[in-house]
């Protein structure tokens, strides 16, 4: 092993102690009891459903689906092996990484679930609040603790929010689900403006962080960009302020129509000013001392995170440069799949879970085991799942990249397509999901095959392609430069194309629908023509999204619906 952490603490995530473990075991016992009461008839299906959802268990099209939480997307090698074990033992040998940095298993049996939760708890994992009308898994920047432009490590705050929101007595039966994201740099890599609450941190005057607070953003059937409630929320008021927002929402969010129950609808109905007034009134009236987040608490949580023990850079950069020169395919992969690291001699790598013609986000148990081995060997045992359904090794020495790439290549994980058109985000769609109108995966596979040529992808350049199988928008189609939305046309599947969406970096926008829905094959052809239009109309160095904004949708619409 080339690295060993300086302490016994896991690198990149919070280390559980006996109190945390006791908590999990008690919750597993509670779920076991709930299952027994359901089987005996003491709980009706209507009553049981929210309780199982609170533990991540859905009844989908073919079976139960279990969504396991990966807090702020970080897990360690041992935990990844637990996921592989679950895939092999209780499922069909694979899992699916989600856009909320979690993993889901598609073929779970209700009767096995208490045991699975126990197995998860043995490596400090759970499925709590991965579904249901509660505060969901808090997401964070996938390059946290590594990115060169980072102001502070958002994972410490994401962990504080995870703990605070876990089985919160007041906020576990909200009008609807509630999603929080936090970015540790001014570069918004978490789509903060598309969350119920989005937090962007920066350093304040006394060296402690302050937060910009966005509220009421979201996708789904009413895509809205969040409004800024606070510009400079001090660290010590973070919990108190979120309590105030959630209290207003819990008391006044609509409960008569699930399609109008998200906080974004409340913010729109009241208007930003009135919503802000109500939050401020609550914030002023509350017992602030009780909810104060003192520096000592932040530091106590931070002390439970292991930090990587970096080695001197040596000639790592030179060695990498030579290897890139010698191997063109490796060079292309380094170009697309690595991200600058704050530590000299290191970089972060993004491992593509989008092989040509494959299912976006699906990995086999053998691949999970390989990822665990690589993390252990090359990245201090730490792995991250991204909201674009890929895997990141945060801290890899530059002179180890070639070895890592070769191992990935051999196991179907070496695709050099991060940020390109085949780095497709897709929900499970009608192949699995009980809510879907159309299948997302087959059209993703066709597009991935259509654009598989590496030179063509490079030629097209950065392009986000997102696919949702229904208006609930789990594939974030509104936020894709190109979005595809599955619809139901009298019982048959059809697809709408949206254009011009974007998730982050200060230019969030919502994609515009091009026109009427088409069949799967027509849609694939239409997208090929949209790409041709871009390639012929772009100015030098202009990215796809920029051409869309400059030209508007008209020429792309003409291309999409051209039948000649």
């Amino acid at each position: 092993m080339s690295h060993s952490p300086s302490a016994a603490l896991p690198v990149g995530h919070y280390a559980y102690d006996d109190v945390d473990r006791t908590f999990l075991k008690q919750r597993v016992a509670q779920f076991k009891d709930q299952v027994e009461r359901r089987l005996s008839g003491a709980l009706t299906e209507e009553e049981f459903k929210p309780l199982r959802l609170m533990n991540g268990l859905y009844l989908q099209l073919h079976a139960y689906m279990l969504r396991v939480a990966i807090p702020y997307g970080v897990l360690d090698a041992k935990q990844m092996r637990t996921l592989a074990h679950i895939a092999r033992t209780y499922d069909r040998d694979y899992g699916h990484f989600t856009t909320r940095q979690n993993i889901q298993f598609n073929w779970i049996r209700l009767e096995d679930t208490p045991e699975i939760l126990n197995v998860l708890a043995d490596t400090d994992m759970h499925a709590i609040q991965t579904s249901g009308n509660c505060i969901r898994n808090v997401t964070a920047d996938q390059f946290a603790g590594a990115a060169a432009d980072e102001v502070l490590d958002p994972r410490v705050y994401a962990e504080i929010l995870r703990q605070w929101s876990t089985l919160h007595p007041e906020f576990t039966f909200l009008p609807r689900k509630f999603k929080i994201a936090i970015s540790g740099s001014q570069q918004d890599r978490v789509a903060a403006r598309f969350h119920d609450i989005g937090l962007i941190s920066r350093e304040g005057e006394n060296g402690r962080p302050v937060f910009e607070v966005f509220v009421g953003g979201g996708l789904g059937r009413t895509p809205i960009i969040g409004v800024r409630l606070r510009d400079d929320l001090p660290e010590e008021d973070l919990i108190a302020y979120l309590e105030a927002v959630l209290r207003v929402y819990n008391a006044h969010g609509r409960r008569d129509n699930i399609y109008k129950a998200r906080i974004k609808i409340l913010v729109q109905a009241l208007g930003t000013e009135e919503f802000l007034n109500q939050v401020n009134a609550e914030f002023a009236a509350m017992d602030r001392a009780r909810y104060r987040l003192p520096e000592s608490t932040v530091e106590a949580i931070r002390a439970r995170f292991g930090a990587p023990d970096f080695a001197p850079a040596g000639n790592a950069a030179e060695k990498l440069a030579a290897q890139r020169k010698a191997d063109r395919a490796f060079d292309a992969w380094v170009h697309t799949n690595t991200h600058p690291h704050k530590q000299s001699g290191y970089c972060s790598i993004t491992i593509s879970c989008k092989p040509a013609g494959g299912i976006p986000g699906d990995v086999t148990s053998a691949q999970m085991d390989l990822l665990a081995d690589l993390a252990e060997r090359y990245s201090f045992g730490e792995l991250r799942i991204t909201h674009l359904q890929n895997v990141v090794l945060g801290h890899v020495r530059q002179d180890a990249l070639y070895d890592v790439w070769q191992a990935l290549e051999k196991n179907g994980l070496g695709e050099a397509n991060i940020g390109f058109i085949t780095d497709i985000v897709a929900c499970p769609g009608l192949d699995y999901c009980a809510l879907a109108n159309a299948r997302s995966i087959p059209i993703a596979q066709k597009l991935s095959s259509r654009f598989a040529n590496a030179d063509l992808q490079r030629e097209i350049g950065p392009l986000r392609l997102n696919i949702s199988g229904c208006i609930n928008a789990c594939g974030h189609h509104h936020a894709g430069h190109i979005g595809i939305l599955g619809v139901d046309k009298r019982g048959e599947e059809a697809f709408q194309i949206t254009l011009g969406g974007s998730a982050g970096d200060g230019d969030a926008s919502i994609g515009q629908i091009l026109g009427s829905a088409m069949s799967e094959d027509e849609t694939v052809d239409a997208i090929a023509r949209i790409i041709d239009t871009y390639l012929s109309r772009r100015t030098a160095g202009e990215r796809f999204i920029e051409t869309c904004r400059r030209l508007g949708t008209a020429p792309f619409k003409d291309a999409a619906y051209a039948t000649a």
Partner: protein
Amino acid sequence: MDRRNSRRDAEGTSVITANRLLDGRIVWLAADGQWTTLIQDAKLYPNSAVEEALKARNARAQEEALVGIYGVQVTETASGPLPVTSRERIRAAGPSVHPDFTPDWHAPHPAPYA
């Protein structure tokens, strides 16, 4: 119940389906009153008689350990009943992206509970 599930014409033929409570798997009501994993074995009902049959089966859902019982309109084909909607065709056949995961799929390595 999901409105899309009960998309039935006045005329026509349907079968009855549900998910098993214990493992979530899809089942179809056969002529002998048993539930089967294969739609080929499902009993055909004229649509005029489906509501009544559903009512009777729903009353027994807890004792039969079933959830989400509903009727699915089908056309009769040489290879058995074929649902009219793509959703129900996928339910009957398994996910299209894993042709090996047919309704009678078995784990190559039996799980510990088997």
